[in-house]
């Protein structure tokens, strides 16, 4: 009898809903960051500073949401903070053609130091937290079992903060822009053949600068989401390597934004499964579950992928006049 109860408990509607909700909660920040990184990589700039930009977005977003008591203020501030940090990348890597990997690592280290420093100086004693975020329940669909999530604390697919839906719409928009519009063609050309883009009379600098700024803004937004919706607080380890995971996701997505979304959600799901297994008292190591997505990807790379596609001019600064 007890085993039956345990089984119904674990696979109950509530538990499964929590599983789905957890996957989305963990996946959305990765989705934002990976989406930005993908555009930046497509334009030929490998943005290793993503981790730092997320962290800065998380901090500034949290502070703005806390003082302004509005999550939208937080998201906006996080977005701007991420874009602000990426200005460094624009200046160093796009304008001056300095090494992108060195600059990226420098940005990550500096942001880690800076956010910890300011946070400690400002909130050393109080350690404030934020309340729950408002969610939008899509009429009709939110009444579905498991996927609906109406009335659940973390919602489910059809009950999420508005920013999640906006993010998904943005992913579709980015996919469409990259594939179907002139602007997308410019971005792709900046990564594949910057010389040709320049010859066509489009500024490589401008195209790449906007792409890098976009990446920074989205990374900042992802960080802000982590702090405001995900944790409701800030701590210096909040990003915890997610920036690097997003870089890997963007590279694996092979410049198809919707794949980045799928990858981010898959990764979020594995994080969520770890929690779920703990609740269900299934004896499986959380460390092992965290490893799974990477093992899976490595397996796919070894067996099928072989040559992951990357833009030809990735991490190459463009200098006019050098062939």
């Amino acid at each position, binding site marked *: 009898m007890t085993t039956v109860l345990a089984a119904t408990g674990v696979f109950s509607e509530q538990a499964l809903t929590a599983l789905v909700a957890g996957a989305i909660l963990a996946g959305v920040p990765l989705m934002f960051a990976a989406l930005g990184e993908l555009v930046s990589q497509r334009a030929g700039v490998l943005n290793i500073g993503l981790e730092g930009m997320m962290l800065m977005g998380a901090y500034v977003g949290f502070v703005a949401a806390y003082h302004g008591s509005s999550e939208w203020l937080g998201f906006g501030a996080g977005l701007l903070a991420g874009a602000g940090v990426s200005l460094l990348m624009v200046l160093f890597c796009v304008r001056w053609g300095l090494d992108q990997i060195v600059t990226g690592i*420098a*940005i990550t280290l*500096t942001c880690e130091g800076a956010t*910890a420093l300011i946070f400690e100086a400002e909130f050393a004693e109080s350690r404030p937290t934020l309340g729950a975020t408002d969610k939008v329940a899509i009429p009709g669909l939110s009444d579905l079992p498991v996927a609906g999530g109406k009335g659940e604390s973390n919602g489910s697919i059809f009950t999420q903060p508005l920013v999640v839906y906006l993010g998904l719409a943005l992913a579709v928009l980015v996919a469409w822009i990259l594939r179907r519009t002139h602007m997308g063609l410019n971005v792709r050309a900046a990564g594949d053949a910057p010389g040709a883009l320049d010859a066509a009379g489009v500024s490589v600098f401008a195209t790449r600068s906007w792409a890098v700024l976009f990446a920074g803004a989205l990374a900042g937004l992802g960080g802000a989401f982590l702090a405001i919706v995900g944790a409701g607080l800030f701590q210096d380890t909040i990003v915890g390597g997610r920036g690097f995971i997003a870089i890997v996701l963007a590279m694996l997505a092979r410049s198809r934004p919707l794949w980045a979304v799928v990858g981010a959600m898959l990764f979020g799901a594995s994080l969520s499964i770890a929690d779920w297994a703990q609740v269900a008292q299934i004896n499986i190591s959380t460390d092992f579950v965290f*490893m799974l997505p990477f093992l899976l990807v490595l397996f796919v790379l070894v067996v099928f992928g072989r*040559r*992951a596609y990357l833009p*030809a001019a990735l*991490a190459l600064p463009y200098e006019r006049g*050098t062939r």
Partner: protein
Amino acid sequence: MTETTAAAELREPPRPREVTGGQAQLGRGGDFFLRSILPLVLALGTGAIILVAIGVDPIQYYKDVYSGGVQFAAWQDSLMRVAPLLLIAVGLIVVFRAGIWNLGIDGQFLLAAAVISGIGSRFEEHLPNTINLLLLFVIAGAVGAAWTIVPALLKARYELNEIITTLMMTFIGINLAQILVKGPFQDSSTTTPQTRAFDFTALLPSIPGTESTSRRWPGVHVGLLVAVAAAFVVWFLMSRTSLGLRLQVLGASMRSARHMGLDVPRLIIVAFLLSGFFVGLAAATEILGVKGYQRADWNPAFGLWVVPLVFLARLHAIGVIPYVVLLSLASIGGDYAAQNAGLTPQFTLLLVGLTLLFMALTEWIARRTAGGSYLPGASYRRHRAEGAG
């Protein structure tokens, strides 16, 4: 830029890009100052401004860094910190000179540490101490090297970008290390997820003369000597042997290496294995010399700290030693100074990041005035372009 026909290759104007750098207009001293000293000065200066801005006396802070990192017995802690950092630096120099990015240091480091702290405390009863320690060093090096095999093979055979694969391997490595520490290597006498601590006498012995009870010196372990020896070995390897030359050719241009008939895939694998081996040794010095056990949540993340130093020293295995000493001092003394000033120890991270930013900046200035570049980026850029061609 992506045009990579043989004719275009011939038309390329000769540019001074050798690793030692050209000193066209700038004297050797000026060049050294600009590229290797100025970034540090600027970073410390900016750090001081930040300290003033948050209301901390910068002079007192830097004094505390000195006293916390050098005075009394602190210099011994600093020197012991040198051992792992120098070994990691040396490992990075090998791959960077070969134009390869190994960004998976933390995974290699933690996994090697987990394996030796797990099996070491079981061996110690059965083996004489010296043999046990030597064996553990070799095992740590082998584990570190083994963790680079997948990225190495993927790059050598399929030209798969090593930045992605090493980053993924580092995540897998960190988690696997935790699984090992919590699972098979768990110390059964405690509930804390950690390995069984080594017997104190089973740890690395001190360098003779550094131990003194009257002055309260605990002693500096011999891992430091291992690290310094490794630096000399790598310096010799890279500058005096044919393997070193072949690796440097690979780093300068993968295409040239192919034209010269070098076995490029094999060189890539050798470079990766060597770097992983040294990172594994770094883990051994930290576990066998300082920690004596490993907790599951322990991750010093030395990897990113060392990257700037290696560039400041222009990928010179002996030249990097003073920088490593400085960083060790800053990290040991920084903890003390930060505590004194009521700051987070992460402030040191900020200084390291700023150093790297200013280094990129002065590199840009130096390239304009003196030409030449020691960053692997230059070669990396070229071989990416070639790979695409």
